[in-house]
Structures are given as structure tokens and as C-alpha cells.
């Protein structure tokens, strides 16, 4: 109990302090508070993850009842993930924001919002009362909004921020609906009430309740078709905020879904199939759109959608495993999903931070204007490369481990499957592998266009490598990624208790074929070490051999024609041209092309603008319709003060008269009845 009070006191003190000191100290205070809160809660979370959960109950008010705060293994896993990303984000952000120090008021607001986001995220993971949960959820939504609109002088940023704000409130509506419905039925906002309630209901009601919560959480997590806010909000935010949003804020949606799965007893098989299909669609759609993006931050945002899809596939497999009481499948699915949650928060924040470095050095993240950065910023480039390999799910990094577990779950499902599930499995495997293949296409494009080759434009300033302290959090992230890649069993052991929350009621059925996918992980560190040694050996051999040989440098082989140099290079659009031609029916790419018809053509422009088909269908069209209907009432807004006063008078009269009129109507009804 004491610790939480201390944290709240620290929080308030920090906010007061931030308001009263100068800009540099604001950053230092924010950073240190984040680290203090992060470390202290991580301590509790570690204990909860490895031994027993931490639980206290606050006496609440009449309105929402007692407030139990409980950190069980699942909360602990998410709290640790959140703390790591937020702390690295804070260190990175502290250095990143140096460029903006003259904007004092914005910085104040930014710092306060940052701390509140951290607190709200931790709170959401541990509180067990629906009412407080919603309060914290709202607090998170608004603080993230403030973080996103830091550069509020740009109209695009405000637009993206408002888009985010609106959509996250739609999410809150769904959540409120769920919590209030349960509270109405059981007179309690506690999470236990949800569990009790679903125990006594038919599975159909449980499923409906779960779907209501799922819709709410899916908007936050970015499942297709609820993803449309994400590709706007991520690029608009300052880079460390994008990293945190993509790393942990959208993961809180995953946390919510998992929490509800534990609480609501329902038909797991149906839910599992539902989540699986939505997730495969999300994954493929996300990566398909990511591939055609030329704005690096937008590309990464679409990749977040893809990775949410992969996490969702894991959850879906886990649920189906629960429904079929296939313990191995459930374990593989849920551990894959949870590990991928951590993994994605690591490599995605790393990718965003490297992008931020590029943005500050080159003042743009439009790929078509970048190139050859690896020679100017070697450390940032290598960090981006490592993260890119990880996000493609390639060995020997962490992304491979979680994808391996999820695929292992799918292959394990084969043995206990009937016809329908077999077909599902084949399509899931195909989908997952296709996602991986497209991710490779996408990130080989992103890395090579931005970092390799020659510069496509002359940058406004000389490009320099970022300072050590801005790179430091990135080194931290990368080392955790490598540790997960090399010693996966360590993390699998840590995942035992969170996964057990889902699977504890399934008795091990000895007839089930044992999956060694988890045992296989132990061979990986040997294999990966072998790979490293082999590569190093070859490079050494090359060095030894080529010592005696003549090594020359020259221009790139241009097949006899070399004058245009950097302008002749492949661009991001041309790299994915054959892909976008193939996928054209599914995508929505607007092209502006000028025909060349004169004999001596002058300079010509060619523009492509990828758009989101689902957004056009689900957001733009209904909005247009609403606007059309609203336009019918445009005559009311005629700018005449007299008219507005008249409206006011009409309104007041109506409000006053309404009860009277209703009374009269009731009286007449009575009279009629008496007849």
C-alpha cells in the first residue's frame, strides 16, 4: 500500500516541480521520475512474475466500490515491458528534445503528459476495478493526445491528433458499454464481478460481452478495420513518442484482450477462430500497405498493425488450444503472443529511434529523398539493420523466437484437427509466412533505400552521427533483443506463470503428442553462436587471403553508362513496383503522371500516393454521408445574431414547456383510459 501512495506523491510533486523550473531541469526531473517509478514498479513486477502476485485493496467510494490493485504474472509481464520501453524512450526523448528547448510551454505540457502516460499505463495493468480502469484509460488517451500534438503548429499534426482522440473515444464507448452492463447486472465494478457474471451466463452472452470488450481494445491495438488512426498518429508525433506509442500504448489493447480472456468464461473455440481470422487479415493487410509506403514513419506505423496481427494469431491459437483442451497448443500460442509483445516493443521502438536520428540529421523521412546514410551515420544504420532483421522474424534475433513459437503452435494443432481446422491451419501458415516474406521485401526496401547507395538529394545541412547519449538507449534495447535471440529459454521460463493463468485449468493429457518446439529453443543458442563464429571465420579468412592480393576501388559497374550517378538509382517506388502492380486490385494507389510527348522533353513529375482502401470505405464514405445530411441544416447557421438569440429563446421555451406538455398528454391518456 505504501509504495503506491509514495508513487502518487512523487507524481504530484513532479508535476508541481515541472511547472516551476527551467526547461533543462524539466527534462531531468521527468527522466528521473520515470526511472524511479519504473524501477520501483519493476521490482514488484519481477516478484509477481517469478513468485507470487502482489495484491492490495483500497477502500473506494460508494460510486465505484472498493479498488483492488493486483499485479499478477500477466500484469507483471506487461509492466516490465512498459517500464523498459518508457525508460529507454525517456532517455532518448531527453536527448531528442534538445532541439526544441526554446518552446518552454510545450515542453512543460509534454513532460507532464509523459509522466501521466507512464502512470496510466502502469495503472491500467494493475487495477482491478472497471470504473478506475476507465478513468485511467481516459487519462492515457488524453495524455497521449497531448504528446502527439507537440508540433501543433502543423495542421497535419493537429488533424492526426484529433483523429486519434476521436477514435480512442470510440474505443472508450465500447469499454464503457461492457463495464457498465456488467455493473448494472451485478452492482459491482470489480473485475471479479465480470468473472462471476460470465460464469452464470450462457456462453452466447459471454461471447457477446467479450466481443464488446474486444472491439474497444482492438481500436487501441490497431486491429484492421479499427486501425485507421494509427498511420496518422505515429508519423505526426515526436519520434520518441511514436516509439512509445507503437511499443507499448497499442500493446495495452493486447493486455486488455488477454485480461478479458482470463476473466470471461466463454466459448474459447469460437473466440479463437474469430481472433485468428481477424489477426491474419490484420497482419497481411498491415504489411501489404506498409510495403508501398515511402514515408519511413508511416511504413513503421503500418508495420505495427502487421505485428499486432502476429500477436493476435498467437492469441487465437492459444484460445483454440484452450477450447480443444490441447495444452501444448495453448502454451505455444500464448507464449508466442506474449513474447512477441515484448519483442515488438523492443524492435519497433528501436526502429523509431533510428528513424528519429535520421529525421534530425536529414530533416526528412521521405525515403525518395534519402540514401547513403550508412556512410555518415554508421551506428544508427547498423542499429536500424539489426532491428529490421528482428522485425522480419529472421534468426538469430528475438523476432524469430516468437514467430517460431507461433508457427510451432500451428504445426502442433495439425495432430488434433478436423477438416475445417486443417484448412484453417494451412491458410494460417500460408498467411504467417506471407507476412514474413512481405516484411522482408518491405524492410530490404526501407533499409537499402534510406541507408545504402548514394544520397538522392543534397541534404540541407551536413549529416552527422547522433551523440552517444541519444544512441545509449538504443544500445540497451539492442542488447536485450540479442539476449532474447541467444537465450530464449530464459524468457520462456519467465513466461511460464503468465501463460499458466490461461492454461492452469487444463489437465495435461498424456495422449497429446509432446511438442519439442520449446525444447528446440535450447539448440538455438548453439546454432546462432555457430553462425556468428562461421561468419567471423569467413571474414577472417577473407582478410588473410586478400592481404596479399590487390584490392582496388572503382565506380559501380554501370553496364557502360554511368554519368547520372545517384539519379539513376533504384527508388523506393521502383523497388516495389512489380509487387504493387501485382497487388493493385487490393491496394489504392493514386498516380499522377504526365505523358511525355514533345521531342525534347523538359523536367517531368511523377507522383504516387498510397491510400488505405478500408479507410476510404469505412471512414471516409460514412463521414461524407454524415456531412451531406448535416449540410441540409446549414441554413440554420446563417451568421445573424438575432436568429441565434431566437434559437436560444425557442430552446428555453421548449425546455420549460416540455414537462407541461408531457403532463397534459399523460392526463389525456388517463382520460382516454378511463373512458
Amino acid at each position, binding site marked *: 500500500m505504501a509504495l503506491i501512495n509514495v508513487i502518487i506523491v512523487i507524481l504530484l510533486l513532479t508535476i508541481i516541480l515541472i511547472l516551476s523550473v527551467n526547461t533543462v531541469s524539466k527534462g531531468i526531473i521527468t527522466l528521473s521520475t520515470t526511472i524511479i517509478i519504473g524501477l520501483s514498479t519493476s521490482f514488484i513486477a519481477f516478484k509477481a512474475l517469478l513468485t507470487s502476485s502482489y495484491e492490495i485493496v483500497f477502500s473506494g467510494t460508494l460510486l465505484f466500490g472498493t479498488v483492488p490493485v493486483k499485479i499478477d504474472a500477466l500484469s507483471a509481464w506487461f509492466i516490465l515491458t512498459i517500464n523498459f520501453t518508457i525508460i529507454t524512450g525517456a532517455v532518448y526523448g531527453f536527448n531528442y528534445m534538445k532541439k526544441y528547448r526554446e518552446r518552454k510551454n510545450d515542453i512543460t505540457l509534454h513532460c507532464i503528459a509523459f509522466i501521466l502516460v507512464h502512470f496510466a499505463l502502469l495503472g491500467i495493468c494493475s487495477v482491478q476495478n472497471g470504473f478506475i480502469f476507465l478513468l485511467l484509460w481516459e487519462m492515457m488517451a488524453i495524455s497521449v493526445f497531448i504528446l502527439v500534438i507537440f508540433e501543433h503548429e502543423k495542421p497535419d499534426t493537429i488533424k492526426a491528433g484529433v483523429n486519434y482522440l476521436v477514435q480512442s473515444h470510440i474505443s472508450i464507448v465500447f469499454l464503457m458499454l461492457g463495464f457498465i452492463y456488467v455493473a448494472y447486472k451485478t452492482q459491482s465494478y470489480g473485475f471479479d464481478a465480470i468473472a462471476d457474471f460470465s460464469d452464470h451466463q450462457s456462453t452466447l452472452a459471454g461471447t457477446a460481452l467479450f466481443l464488446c470488450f474486444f472491439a474497444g481494445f482492438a481500436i487501441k491495438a490497431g486491429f484492421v478495420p479499427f486501425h485507421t488512426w494509427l498511420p496518422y498518429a505515429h508519423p505526426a508525433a515526436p519520434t520518441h513518442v511514436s516509439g512509445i506509442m507503437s511499443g507499448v500504448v497499442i500493446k495495452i489493447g493486447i493486455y486488455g484482450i488477454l485480461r478479458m480472456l482470463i476473466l470471461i468464461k466463454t466459448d474459447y473455440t469460437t473466440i479463437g477462430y474469430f481472433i485468428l481470422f481477424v489477426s491474419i487479415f490484420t497482419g497481411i493487410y498491415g504489411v501489404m500497405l506498409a510495403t508501398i509506403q515511402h514515408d519511413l514513419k508511416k511504413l513503421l506505423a503500418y508495420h505495427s498493425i502487421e505485428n499486432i496481427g502476429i500477436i493476435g494469431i498467437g492469441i487465437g491459437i492459444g484460445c483454440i488450444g484452450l477450447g480443444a483442451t490441447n495444452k501444448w497448443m495453448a502454451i505455444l500460442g500464448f507464449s508466442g503472443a506474449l513474447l512477441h509483445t515484448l519483442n515488438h516493443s523492443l524492435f519497433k521502438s528501436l526502429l523509431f529511434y533510428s528513424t528519429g536520428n535520421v529525421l534530425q540529421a536529414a530533416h526528412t523521412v521521405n525515403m525518395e529523398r534519402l540514401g547513403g546514410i550508412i556512410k555518415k551515420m554508421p551506428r544508427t544504420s547498423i542499429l536500424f539493420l539489426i532491428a529490421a532483421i528482428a522485425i522480419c522474424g529472421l534468426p538469430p534475433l528475438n523476432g524469430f523466437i516468437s514467430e517460431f513459437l507461433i508457427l510451432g503452435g500451428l504445426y502442433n494443432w495439425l*495432430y488434433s484437427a478436423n477438416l475445417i481446422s486443417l484448412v484453417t491451419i494451412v491458410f494460417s501458415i500460408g498467411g504467417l509466412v506471407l507476412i514474413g516474406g*512481405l516484411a522482408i521485401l518491405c524492410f530490404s526496401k526501407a533499409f537499402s533505400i534510406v541507408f545504402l547507395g548514394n544520397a538522392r538529394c543534397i541534404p540541407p545541412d551536413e549529416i552527422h552521427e547522433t551523440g552517444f547519449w541519444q544512441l545509449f538507449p538504443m544500445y540497451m534495447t539492442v542488447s536485450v533483443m540479442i539476449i532474447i535471440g541467444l537465450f530464449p529459454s530464459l524468457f520462456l521460463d519467465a513466461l511460464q506463470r503468465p501463460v499458466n493463468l490461461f492454461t492452469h485449468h487444463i489437465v495435461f493429457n498424456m495422449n497429446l503428442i509432446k511438442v519439442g518446439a520449446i525444447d528446440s529453443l535450447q539448440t538455438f543458442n548453439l546454432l546462432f553462436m555457430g553462425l556468428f563464429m562461421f561468419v567471423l571465420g569467413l571474414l577472417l579468412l577473407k582478410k588473410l587471403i586478400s592481404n596479399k592480393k590487390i584490392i582496388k576501388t572503382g565506380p559501380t559497374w554501370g553496364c557502360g553508362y554511368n554519368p547520372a550517378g545517384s539519379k539513376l538509382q533504384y527508388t523506393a517506388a521502383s523497388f516495389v513496383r512489380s509487387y504493387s502492380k501485382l497487388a493493385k486490385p487490393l491496394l489504392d494507389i493514386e498516380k499522377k503522371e504526365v505523358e511525355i510527348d514533345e521531342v525534347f522533353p523538359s523536367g517531368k513529375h511523377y507522383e504516387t500516393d498510397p491510400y488505405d482502401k478500408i479507410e476510404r470505405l469505412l471512414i471516409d464514405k460514412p463521414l461524407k454521408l454524415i456531412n451531406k445530411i448535416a449540410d441540409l441544416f446549414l441554413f440554420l447557421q446563417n451568421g445573424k445574431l438575432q436568429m441565434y438569440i431566437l434559437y436560444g429563446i425557442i430552446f428555453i421555451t421548449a425546455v420549460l414547456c416540455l414537462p407541461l406538455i408531457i403532463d397534459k398528454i399523460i392526463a389525456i391518456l388517463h382520460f382516454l383510459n378511463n373512458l
Partner: protein
Amino acid sequence: MLSIILILFCSLFFTGIILRTKSITSGRKGPGIMQPLRDVIRLFKKGAVYSETTSIIFQIAPAIYFSTVIMACLVIPFGSYKGIVSFDGDFIFFAYILALGKFFSIISAMDTGSSFEGMGASREALYSMFAEPAFFILIGSFALFTGKTSFNEIFSTLHLGSSITYMLGGMASFVMIMIALIENSRMPVDDPKTHLELTMIHEVMVLDNSGFDLGLILSAGYLKFAMYGAIIADFFIGGLSLMYALPLFLLIQTLFAVTVGMIESFMARFRMNHNPQFILVLSSVSFLIFLGVLLVLEKFI
């Protein structure tokens, strides 16, 4: 252990056999079987020219590419004899580690800043992406068929009993040969002997590599061929004793090489924009194999 030695051994002659087949069918005298090997050895002895545009990626990529192929070979069994490592889901590792090598070869091609190499890189990335589902569905079908999830266990329990299973084995070999051709950028998808950079895929990606690096890339290509040959052979030698398995293995490898040579002699390369369709056909064939397995297991009601 046995498998890696055999793969290394076969890789020495594989490309030679292809070249020899091609020269015999076209009525040329042609180079000897050992010529590709001599080429590699000559390259290892040579110096190198690096483009000014390239960075460290270009220097390390060939070594990584070669190492990934070796690592992939490690999990391949020889019939019922395990590979150097064998674990559940090792075929996932196999496909992903090869993808790592491919990733590096793509970015190393892009590192030169040449538009020709960019063209090859983009095609390679696209085609191998489409080939991947075929492989996973194929192995998935055999995993379902045998109830096992590692290369070694799948192949050692694989019995081709009834006529349907022979058909499955045939179709699986077809898919594997095609995957091998795509992964090695050989004929109907890519023509290694073409003289126009615009029509190349793999060859154009290594335009700027020379000396030791080019030697590594070429030998990785030879190894890859023998590796896929070993997988195809494994479909048939699963339960056999060493006395029969060994000659059969060598025979299948030779047949595979001759088949590749024949395909290259008598087929023209597809138009580039037809390639994706062709590769998607492979996924459909794998799906057919999957349905065949369902039929054998009587999963249809």
C-alpha cells in the same frame, strides 16, 4: 554428419553436371564436370574491386550468405540418419535462416547504388516471398502425414505405400525442384546465362562482387543445389538401409542435376511478369498435396 558430408560432396559436381548436360544436349563439347569448381578456386586466388558507393554491408554480406547456407545444410538429414542438429520445427529454422541469407544478398546488391542490381534485388525479394508458402505448406502436409515435426522424423517415418502416396511423393519432388530452381535463380524463372542485365535476377545482383566474395556466392549456390537435392532424395530413401540409400541418394542427385540441365536446354525463360503466376502455381500444387494427405488420412468424411 553423413548428410552434410554427402551434400558437400555432391555440391562439388552438381553444377558441373548441369553444364555438361547442357553442352551434350546442344551438341557442344563443353567444359568438364570440374570446371565450376576450378572457377571458384580461381576466384579465391584473385584480388577484388569494390565500388566506391558500397559500405560495410557489401563486405560482410557474402560471408553471411554463405554461412546461412551452411547452417541450413546442418539440419538436413540423410534418410533416417540425423543431420548435425535435429529438433522439432527445424524446417522452420531451415527456411528462416535461408531467408536471412537472402535478405543480406538483397541489401548488398542495393548497396552498390546500381539500378540494374536494384532491379534484380527487387525481383529476388518478390519471387522468394511467393515461393515460401509453398515450402511451408508442403512440409506441413508431410508433418500431418507422418505426425512428426522435424526433418529427420518426417523422413524416417515417411513410407510411400499406396499409389496415392507415390503421387504425393512425385508432386512433392516437383514442388521441391521448382523451389530449388527459384531459390537458385535458374531457368524457367531466371536465366543465369543471359547476356542482358535487364533480364537477369540473381546474376545481376552480384555484378559488382569479385574475387573471394564472388567465389563464396558461387559456392553457396552450388551448395544450395545439393541441399535441395538432398531433401528431394530424402522423400524416397527414408526407411532404406544405408546400402540402398547411398546409391539411391547419389542417383537422385545426379538425376536432379540432369533434369535441371534438360529444363535449361529445352525451355525458354518466362516473361518476368509471368513469373509470379508461375510461382503461385507452386503454392496451389502444395495445397493439392495437402488435400492428397487429407485423402490418405481419411479426414474427409
